[in-house]
């Protein structure tokens, strides 16, 4: 490998300028466990500077027409697309995900995020009503809220960051974004495209650093009235507390404990590969990943056998290996946490059918210190076990049998989360019935992760507050005003 030993040094991007910071955090390459990059360890001062810049940029940006903002977003999408491979490599190296996934999902979707909101902003309308008997006309207009604070996670770094930046600036807001300090590289690279795309200075500001320093400064800043956060439920609690004195508008996209429900009439040819993917894609580090698989008893043994076979075929390799299905987990600490869940399951008497502790993981010598783990399938586990209740966020899935429809719905719903569920059946009546009864913001039937960006995305119960989508994000990032005119 021709990598230089010099560390990559990131800088904050405020008011259209790259600014150094007086303190830095080490960032590790998950595939080797070596430090390869230094990320600004920003704090209150940098957030304050970003607020000043965002405030100054707001009047001009918000008064541009949707068409003009749309053009800028399209331009940014094109530039990002032109650099797709470079971004994909950087994302893979920084996050540990496979290059294939970064190239086919993360970066194309980031491009699509800008294009999608560039077009949807042109078609937003508000309402107009008449009250003839009172001689009144009423109409609504929507205006951008102001400075939006955006906090994005480390699992899909650029994908989820752009999913917030695009609707926020499309609606005319200016933003201060904080990507995860674990995965900041692609955000920093994107900043280099902003000027060329025509994004005026101060419209997009990125302040790198940790949640306790940057995140808290942003969330408790009185001039940032709207916070969009994707991440864990405990952090969301903290954000809610800190923002409460300012009555901020919050959008919280949190974790999941997503069930897959597989009925005996499911097409297993499709079901098994998709459920493997839904369990282990991106190392299981997607909030939508399946971690509880309920299989109808009559096909349970057959399913188990075929699923474990397929899981063993799900190749763990170094991220740059194009034949790898799964790369490294994000961090040493996270790897430990995921392994611990498997240990606890074993202690409870559950069986590990493949993966962690059962199969051997073969890695090149250089990557022995990387954060790798095999896809792991647990069975003979009780619904009350921590592995069936808590979000693991790693390549671990539990498989349990069920008898009938009513029972499985009740069990699937018996967790605090409610983000995504999958249902596998070829019976037309059943799929509609079950989907309706699941407590879940999203239900995929006979498929997984097919996203329709026009429609609301988000979870119920502890999986979050608010939804994101063409209409929902627009409404979140705007304030509506009702105007009444008597004539």
């Amino acid at each position, binding site marked *: 490998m021709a990598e230089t030993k010099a560390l990559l040094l990131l800088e904050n991007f405020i008011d259209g300028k790259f600014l150094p910071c007086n303190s830095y955090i080490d960032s590790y390459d998950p595939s080797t466990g070596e430090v390869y990059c230094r990320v600004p360890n920003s704090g209150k001062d940098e957030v304050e500077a970003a607020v000043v810049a965002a405030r100054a940029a707001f009047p001009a940006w918000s008064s541009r027409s949707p068409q003009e903002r749309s053009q800028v977003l399209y331009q940014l999408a094109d530039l990002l697309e032109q650099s797709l491979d470079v971004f994909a490599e950087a994302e893979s190296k920084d996050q540990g995900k496979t290059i294939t996934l970064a190239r086919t999902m993360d970066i194309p979707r980031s491009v699509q995020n800008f294009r999608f909101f560039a077009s949807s902003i042109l078609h937003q309308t508000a309402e107009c*009503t008449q009250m003839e008997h*009172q001689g009144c006309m009423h*109409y609504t207009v929507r205006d951008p809220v102001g400075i939006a604070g955006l906090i994005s996670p480390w699992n899909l770094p650029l994908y989820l960051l752009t999913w917030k930046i695009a609707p926020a600036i499309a609606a005319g807001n200016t933003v201060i974004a904080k990507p995860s300090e674990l995965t900041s590289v692609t955000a920093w690279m994107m900043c280099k495209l902003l000027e060329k795309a025509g994004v005026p200075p101060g419209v997009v500001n990125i302040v790198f650093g940790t949640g306790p320093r940057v995140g808290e400064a942003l969330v408790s800043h009185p001039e940032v009235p709207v916070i969009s956060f994707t991440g864990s439920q405990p952090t969301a609690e903290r954000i809610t507390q800190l923002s409460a004195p300012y009555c901020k508008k919050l959008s919280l996209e949190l974790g999941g404990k997503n069930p897959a429900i597989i009925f005996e009439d499911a097409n297993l040819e499709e079901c098994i590969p998709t459920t493997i993917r839904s369990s282990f894609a991106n190392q299981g580090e997607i909030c939508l990943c399946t971690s509880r698989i309920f299989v109808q008893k009559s096909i349970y043994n057959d399913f188990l056998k075929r699923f474990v076979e397929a899981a063993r075929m799900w190749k763990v390799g170094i991220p740059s290996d194009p034949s790898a299905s799964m790369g490294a987990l994000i961090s040493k600490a996270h790897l430990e946490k995921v392994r611990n869940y498997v240990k606890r399951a074993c202690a409870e008497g559950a069986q590990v059918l493949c993966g962690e502790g059962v199969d051997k993981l073969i890695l090149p010598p250089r990557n022995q210190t990387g954060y790798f783990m095999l896809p792991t399938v647990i069975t003979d586990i009780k619904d009350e076990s921590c592995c069936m209740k808590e979000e693991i966020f790693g390549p671990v899935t539990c498989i349990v049998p069920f008898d009938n429809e009513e029972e499985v719905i009740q069990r699937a719903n018996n967790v605090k989360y409610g983000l995504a569920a999958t249902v596998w059946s070829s019976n*037309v*009546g059943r799929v509609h019935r079950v989907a309706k009864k699941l407590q879940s913001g999203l239900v995929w039937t006979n498929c997984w992760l097919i996203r329709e960006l026009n429609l609301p995305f988000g979870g119920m119960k502890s999986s979050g507050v608010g939804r994101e989508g063409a209409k929902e994000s627009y409404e979140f990032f705007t304030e509506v005003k009702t105007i009444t005119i008597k004539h």
Partner: protein
Amino acid sequence: MEVINAPRHGSIIYHPSLLPRHRGASAINWTLIHGDKKGGFTIFWADDGLDTGDLLLQKECEVLPDDTVSTLYNRFLFPEGVKGMVQAVRLIAQGKAPRHPQPEEGATYEGIQKKETAKINWAQSAEDIHNWIRGNDKVPGAWTEACGQKLTFFNSTLNTAGLMPEGDALPIPEAHRPGVVTKAGLILFGNDDRMLLVKNIQLEDGKMIPAANFFRGADSSALELTEAEQATAEAVRSAWKRILPNVPEVEDATDFFKSGAASVDVVRLVEEVKELCGGLELENEDIYMATAFGDFIQLLVRRLRGEDGESECVIDHVEKSVNKMTVQMPHQLFIGGAFVDAEGAKTYDTINPTDGSVICQVSLAQVSDVDKAVAAAKDAFENGQWGKISARDRGRLLYRLADLMEQHQEELATIEALDAGAVYTLALKTHVGMSIQTFRYFAGWCDKIQGSTIPINQARPNRNLTLTRKEPIGVCGIVIPWNYPLMMLAWKTAACLAAGNTVVIKPAQVTPLTALKFAELTLKAGIPKGVVNILPGSGSLVGQRLSDHPDVRKIGFTGSTEVGKHIMKSCALSNVKKVSLELGGKSPLLIFADCDLNKAVQMGVSSVFFNKGENCIAAGRLFVEDSIHDQFVQRVVEEVRKMKIGNPLDRDTNHGPQNHQAHLRKLLEYCQRGVTEGATLVCGGKQVPRPGFFFEPTVFTDVEDHMFIAKEESFGPVMIISRFANGDIDGVLSRANATEFGLASGVFTRDLSKALYISDKLDAGTVFVNTYNKTDVAAPFGGFKQSGFGKDLGEAALNEYLRIKTVTFEY
């Protein structure tokens, strides 16, 4: 002069004209009569009585073209006069009061204006006549001799822009041309042939009436109040004063809203009236309907005397004792809120299909009746309360109508059974039940009809704003079929009314009675007169005239494709009417071997035989997968044999008579043709040997695609079964879609992928999956291809009766 000069500072006098013009009495009158553009008042040092004293001060004002003595006085001469006197006294006190000698130039002196001298001279221009009338308004009042009495005119205006002198002539012997009574008032002509408009007329007996009502006689004339009612009126007047503290005097003409009342005051007035008038409960809309105090008292007294709208309407019911109740059926045309005979008192017999007997004679509308009904609907739309009340109140009226339909549901269902042969229990649930639901559903829409605020490119440096509003279209014509007489009426009329239109409805000639009963209920519900008009009659006269009528802007039609095409053409040629058409169907139903067979048999039977097959979405063809074909046919035939044919009023009947005799004959021919072409007649195909128009439930198998019965709609209880090869999904789809119709369709299968694939590929406005005939008020209903366009039901139906206006501002 001695008296005048006695005070230390002398005496001053207020005079309501700009002296030296109009010295003497009636100065304001003469200012107007002479058409002065400027008026005003003068304060002068008193003289010996000829208004020639030295001037102290003068104030001028503009005289507006329609000012009367009263308006000029109230607007300027009184309030400013008071201030002027104060100013004059101050000037005197300060020793600064001037004494300018009055010029003689321009001086005029006219005598006192009295009733005897206020007679109109018609040999002058319209403007001079107008000035004369307003110069005598209200005192002493300009008059003329006409219609054998002395008529005094008030509230004249020269602003006649847009008025057409169309109406009833009022001959005035001395006038250049007769006057014309129009809706806006009385149009008069000067000798220059120009028009003026008079809004109020006082009759010789002292009654004041709106000029527009001159020929309307007693019903619009004011009630004479009894002493007790006078006392009530005074109490109510005090209530108005309390509610309107800024109005110095509550007079008959005082307008509640123009005097500053807001909607909260409406509620207060309703409550005050309740206390003052022994608990009399007015509706908010009553106050919106009578906003002037005088009108309000009239309305109040009418209510107190119990003369509300309903009792005024006399309905000549046909009564029948049947189904353990007495049904009361109106049988005349319903125009402008009244049941009236058709022109020439034409009638026809409506027949009970259960035994072929005559139920009653029904008025048969003629072309001139259509014109009357459209005029009534147009007036109700343009001038009536319907367009003025709030959308929410409109919704309340429709809710009330739905409640009344519910209260009369047994009666309506019984009439439907008598007139259309509908099975009573089905009529209760569907014909009437769904009609009620439809009105409730659309009642809720009334206040939720809205447009959008749309961002557009800004015309820099200015900014733009584009709004859309959804407006009612105006007068709509609705022409409906005989299969579900009331329900078809409800599907269209509810959306039409919710959108704020007015309507002329033509029920099918053979089934007019529930529509006329519905008309009666609209009156009871308080739907304003003229909003709903119903004309039983023929398509060739009434339907044609509605399609051709220049004042009708929309036709909603349900019926045959052939007639639909004709209507569309007429709508195009007359005035490019908006049109929505719900036409014929030959709806395919696909039954796969992997279905729930019990359900498929049960639903398959009802898909064809529901409502005797008189159902536009009836499954016109069943395609059954080969491997279950024989079993399916056998089980269907078993079910059909169980069907109880009988009097529709019997509770255990599930198959009643066909709607009318001509339809029965067509069904016989249809089945004959099927047999001739070689299809297998498994059962039925014959008239039932009993009185009335009963037809046996019929099943054909081995029906090939080229046969007449495979292509054409029977609209009767005839099941047409064809088989398809096992697993040949695309083959059966192409056969199912090989029709010019596209109303509905259905599929029975348990397989998810198959169900979704087929629902994508079927070329029809509705696809039922593992069910059939499942319509709902909230789900849009309508066809593709030659089954028409435009939807009934659901939000989509509202848009059929609305038009969108785009308003763009620059600021």
